[in-house]
């Protein structure tokens, strides 16, 4: 049996000791739930805690574990009476996550999360962190339809084909990724699940039809391309990591001598064309060959607009 790395056990144990020590006769089930261990692992952790002592290691210098079948009590654990400070990454993750959830429209501005954030900021002397998601025009009605399970008719602009179509959709819970709000919805027009960008919904009308709403939350936390979407390989001379915000980048390889090679999944040529025009002359398509001229060709078309 392999043993988890010492650091992981240690981090858990030194977080657990102050919590148990402050609660005489704490329930072992509760401890196991909170610290995400099985009862068997908890017993192993307690056996470890029993071995901790400080110089001069007289009997009273060891932590005493009073084990009472389903409850436990710790004595002489004073040097571990407080948990370890939060690291900078931990402080940031906690604060940014909380600030972000408070920024989602409809969240409780005076509830437990708000008071928790206030306590955290006061105790940590934390930096100001503010999050804004933006609220596309139809976000609220789509979120409400996802909750109530009402199918909606939407006018949807497809950037890939530069066209607006009207379709009936059953929206899933809206989620925010890559800087945009999305909903993973069943599209009655296509007869399959499709990812819709909420800011591209031009109009929403109620349909009076209902579906079984998805109770388990968003299906995909991040937009994921379908396996059938074509892939393109692009090489660039400059660092274009920003593309990962805007596109489904499957891999980035640093090239010897500088530059990067990116593999990107794309749905429509028009979309890829716009990306290539924005990347400019320092980027070129290496695969598939029939797309070599997609960027330069688009550039010539735009130049024609400038009478050149």
């Amino acid at each position, binding site marked *: 049996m392999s043993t988890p790395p010492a650091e992981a056990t240690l981090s858990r144990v030194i977080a657990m000791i102050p919590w148990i020590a402050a609660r005489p006769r704490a329930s072992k089930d509760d401890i196991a739930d*909170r610290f995400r261990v099985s009862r068997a692992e908890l017993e192993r952790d307690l056996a470890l805690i029993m071995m*901790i002592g400080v110089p001069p290691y007289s009997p009273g210098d060891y932590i005493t574990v009073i084990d009472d079948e389903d409850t436990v009590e710790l004595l002489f654990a004073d040097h571990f009476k407080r948990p370890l400070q939060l690291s900078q990454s931990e402080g940031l993750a906690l604060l940014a996550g909380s600030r972000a959830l408070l920024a989602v429209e409809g969240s409780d501005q005076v509830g437990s999360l708000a008071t928790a954030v206030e306590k955290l900021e006061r105790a940590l002397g934390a930096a100001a962190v503010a999050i804004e998601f933006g609220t596309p025009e139809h976000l609220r009605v789509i979120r409400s339809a996802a909750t109530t399970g009402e199918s909606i008719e939407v006018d949807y602009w497809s950037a890939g084909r530069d066209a607006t179509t009207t379709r009936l959709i059953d929206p899933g819970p809206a989620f925010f990724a890559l800087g945009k709000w999305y909903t993973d919805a069943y599209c009655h027009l296509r007869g399959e699940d499709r990812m819709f960008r909420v800011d591209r919904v031009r109009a929403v009308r109620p349909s009076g039809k209902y579906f079984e709403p998805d109770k388990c939350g968003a299906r995909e936390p991040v937009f994921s391309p379908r396996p059938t979407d074509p892939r393109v390989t692009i090489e660039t001379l400059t660092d274009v990591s920003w593309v990962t915000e805007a596109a489904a980048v499957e891999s980035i390889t640093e090239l010897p001598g500088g530059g990067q090679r990116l593999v990107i999944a794309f749905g429509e040529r028009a979309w890829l064309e716009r990306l290539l025009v924005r990347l400019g002359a320092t980027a070129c398509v290496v695969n598939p060959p029939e797309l070599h001229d997609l960027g330069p060709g688009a550039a010539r078309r735009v130049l024609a607009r*400038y009478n050149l």
Partner: protein
Amino acid sequence: MTDTPDRRERLLNLLAALLNTDRGFTRDDLISNSSIGYPAGDSARRAFERDKASLRAMGVPLTDEAQGNEIRYRVKTSEYYLPPLALTDEELAALHIAVTAIGIDDAASEGALMKLGGFTGEGSAPIAVLPHAPQLVPLFEASRNRSVVTFDYHGRSRRLEPWGLTSKFGNWYVVGLEPDLQDMRVFRIDRIENEISAGAPNKFTVPSDFLPGSYLDEQPWEYGGGRTTAVRIRVDPGHAASFAARGEADDIQSEPDGSAVITLRVVDMNAMRDFVLGFVEHAEVLDPPEAREAVIDWLTELSLSVKDDE
């Protein structure tokens, strides 16, 4: 390689000993104490070095102070102990919901919750993912410590009092005062070009009414500091509304054919070009000439580019 229970026991005893001393211990004090559990001989020193590294990697503030001709190790409780937060179980459950609803750095948020008293409640389905730029953590740390930071941005070295961080529409920005210019500035964090170097702590104060988000109703082409230029762009019918909605235009002149001439206030010409080119042939930069030329040069270069092996 896996770690034996002995090593975990040894690490915990080492940490307990280091927390429980005012004077500190020398390495020999520690490795020769059989109750801590180091092996005999030379391997004890190597084991001690490895243990030090493990404790530091976990975030334990292990100090080594030279006293006379020896080094004494200890962990100051004032630096180790998390200050009491007095979070209720409802608040802990709310934090659990927040970090599961918002994806930013799962390992870090799980570590944080563990320290605050473990996981309570059910958490949440994910509703948002925020990007995690590598420079976020050093900027957050500098902002907490009130340290002035130095970094390169658009090829120029900048000094900034990082007052706060803000994320809008999926990008992270640092907002603060440039002490050399006595002016508030906003920088996009993922565009910072090098490592962030932070100076000494407690070098500035942040006004209590400071709100980082309030500096951010601007568009990408309005960042970075420098001269503002009014750039006029003609946008085709059918695209003008979308351009204006996304562009927060300064001025919009609608033409009879449904097209529009839109004016943007531009500091960063590259960001403006990037935005306008997203509309390909449906948008045309009219003036000033240097803005129009910049777009034409970019496109001309691209139109002439061919793959090397052709």
